[in-house]
């Protein structure tokens, strides 16, 4: 170590979140642009025209629940109600599955509480056959696409009805038919894959586009950089969504570089259109996605959208957020709750009321309860109603090579010798 007395010693900066357990959470210094203030570039606008939007916040719903400004997507009340319903159903699903995990019916679950507007409203802004490459917190896409809840639960229970044959950790859904790409535990790997899918669509002269999601924590992975580079180089018809919910397990967004800049601003260096959006404002989410989809569909290239939101609950059923952040954060979060805000909007425009909302919540709870009952007929984790043991060897390759066939026979013989049921 060399030390020169005339120079001050160097200091390493290690980011620290504003509030820790026991602290009062105070977001008053937090700069929230007014709803309606952000301009809306034309479809044919260049990435450069989005520059300021990368540092702003696209917001449509004002504090009174009115939809204001150029980003108002002017959706019919029916569509807004459908988005609200998808969000409410997603929350009810999460509640029920969280409880199922606590009851020991499955090993693991992850809620998306507080982030429902993102996946749900986006599903309405995309075509049904646009390919989604989600992370593990976009269950709202499936629910908004009316994917059967029973099928999702079968996967969570790894039971006899699980299309993934119990091979995957709960919530790592996959359905080609639902245009929902197989979820991987490895973070951010889906980003370059989505870009590749979009490139393939362009190579074939298709009209479908791709969309992909990651959290702000995952933007630190090399895959994010590669995806952005390939997306811009080939002008891939893809939407890259960064869900900035402030937390990557126990690490706040500062550890992904969020102290110095916004995640939307990452787009600028790549020459990609970047948008920063109020992630708890379903109408802003819809409008931003719609514009990004139009850009992709008209060969204007990729769009990066940062959705500014808050992870209202723990990272997963294996996590206890009270160990690393202030318990007050959730209630003081200045962008509120996405469901309450959309509900207020519908009430404000005279298209909704408390009674109908309560009835909808009851419907959702009943639908989830009925689906759960149905799914549990196929078994829950660890209660014997799993797939036959030999399915373990299927799908490693298209056909079973000799060494896997040998291992399969070995396993079955050992199980039979030990008196274990193999089917």
């Amino acid at each position: 170590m060399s030390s020169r007395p005339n120079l001050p010693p160097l200091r390493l900066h290690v980011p620290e979140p504003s509030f820790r357990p026991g602290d009062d959470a105070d977001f008053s210094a937090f700069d929230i642009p007014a709803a309606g203030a952000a301009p809306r570039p034309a479809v044919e606008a260049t990435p450069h025209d989005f520059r300021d939007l990368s540092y702003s916040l696209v917001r449509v719903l004002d504090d009174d629940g009115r939809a204001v400004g150029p980003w108002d997507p002017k959706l019919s009340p029916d569509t807004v109600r459908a988005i609200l319903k998808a969000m409410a159903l997603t929350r009810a699903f999460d509640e029920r599955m969280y409880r199922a995990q606590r009851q020991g019916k499955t090993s693991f679950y992850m809620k998306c509480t507080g982030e429902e507007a993102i996946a749900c409203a986006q599903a309405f802004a995309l075509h049904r056959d646009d390919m989604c490459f989600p992370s593990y917190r976009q269950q709202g896409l499936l629910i908004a696409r009316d994917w059967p809840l029973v099928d999702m639960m079968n996967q969570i229970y790894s039971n006899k009805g699980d299309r993934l044959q119990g091979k995957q950790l709960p919530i790592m859904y996959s359905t080609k038919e639902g245009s929902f790409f197989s979820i991987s535990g490895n973070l951010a790997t889906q980003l370059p894959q989505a870009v590749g899918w979009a490139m393939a669509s362009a190579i074939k002269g298709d009209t479908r586009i791709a969309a992909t999601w990651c959290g702000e924590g995952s933007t630190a992975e090399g895959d994010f950089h590669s995806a952005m580079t390939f997306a811009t180089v080939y002008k891939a018809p893809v939407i890259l969504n960064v869900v900035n919910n402030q937390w990557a397990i126990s690490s706040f967004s500062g550890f992904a570089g969020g102290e110095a800049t916004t995640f939307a601003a990452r787009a600028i260096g790549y020459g990609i259109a970047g948008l920063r959006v109020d992630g708890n404002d379903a109408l802003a989410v819809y409008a931003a996605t719609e514009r990004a989809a139009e850009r992709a569909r008209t060969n204007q290239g990729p769009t990066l959208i940062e959705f500014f939101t808050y992870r209202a609950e723990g990272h997963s059923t294996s996590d206890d957020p009270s160990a690393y952040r202030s318990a007050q954060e959730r209630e003081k979060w200045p962008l509120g709750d996405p469901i309450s805000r959309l509900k207020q909007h519908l009430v404000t425009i005279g298209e909704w009321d408390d009674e109908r909302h309560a009835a909808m919540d009851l419907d959702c709870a009943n639908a989830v309860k009925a689906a759960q009952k149905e799914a549990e007929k196929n078994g829950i984790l660890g209660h014997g109603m799993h797939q036959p043991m030999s399915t373990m060897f299927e799908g490693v390759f298209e056909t079973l090579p000799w060494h896997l066939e040998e291992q399969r026979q070995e396993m079955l013989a050992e199980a039979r010798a030990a008196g274990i049921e193999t089917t």
Partner: protein
Amino acid sequence: MNMIQAINSALDVLMDRDPNIVVMGEDVGYFGGVFRATAGLQSKYGKTRVFDTPISELGIIGVAVGMGAYGLRPVPEIQFADYIYPALDQLVSEAARLRYRSAGDFTAPITVRSPFGGGIFGGQTHSQSPEGIFTHVSGLKTVIPSTPYDAKGLLIAAIEDNDPVIFFEPKRIYNGPFSGHYDRPAQNWSQHPAGEVPDGYYRIDLGKAQVVRPGEALTVLAYGTMVHVCAGVIEEQGIDAELIDLRTLLPLDIETIEASVKKTGRCMIVHEATRTSGFGAELSALVQERCFYHLEAPIERVTGYDTPYPHSLEWAYFPGPVRIGEALKKIMKD
């Protein structure tokens, strides 16, 4: 044809038949590849089917996995096998697992071509043989040709395969077979029977080894450049060895290996890759398990040493005629 031309021909023949095949990688487009393996393909099939990529191995493979999920049949190139590591997550966690984790809903029918192996004064980062990393991954197939004829037939089979295939091309023998005698004039494929390659379509099924030289005294298992080095040493020593070119490491042709060792009672395994946990260890274990009562001597492994690939001491490192020759004598004495 030399091996480069054979590979080029395989790509050409298949691209002509299947519009879903795309070729991508660093410098593979306009320029035709640093080894010329993709020369002429872009002008023939267009820029959307043969194109240059950014210098990002993870990006190349990640994008290829996405294209495969769409329904294309991508053939990405990694310029040197030494540079495949940034793509390991995409290969191991994604390409290899996609069919399994989605229960067949999505697949990754990609073929990753990459020049590999030493003997060219490539030093640490242009000589490696990382096949053992990939044979350890469930869900990947690993193929290594040793002649132009095999290279074309195997590459066609690899691209047509619906599972991800790692296709390592021994760059030391791109232009001609190599006996390991680096001080002798270079040979070229025009004098070798396997340099005769049909212009059209043919395939060599994956998972099938080839007995290059039948024999009774011992079995030599090799692949890539080492097939030719071993053939040379066997001839020089006048030993009646059975030389088997594995061609596909996974799935392995265990029947051919087992039948040979049961006949000869001795087995020698030769590869360029480092020894510890190398593919030779798997071969040795399989032979031991299956041929134990037929073995008359311990199984011998001649491999690269457990060091990074050196530059100036290449010929001391490379499993050449001296090292293989000594091992042959030893195993015959045991």
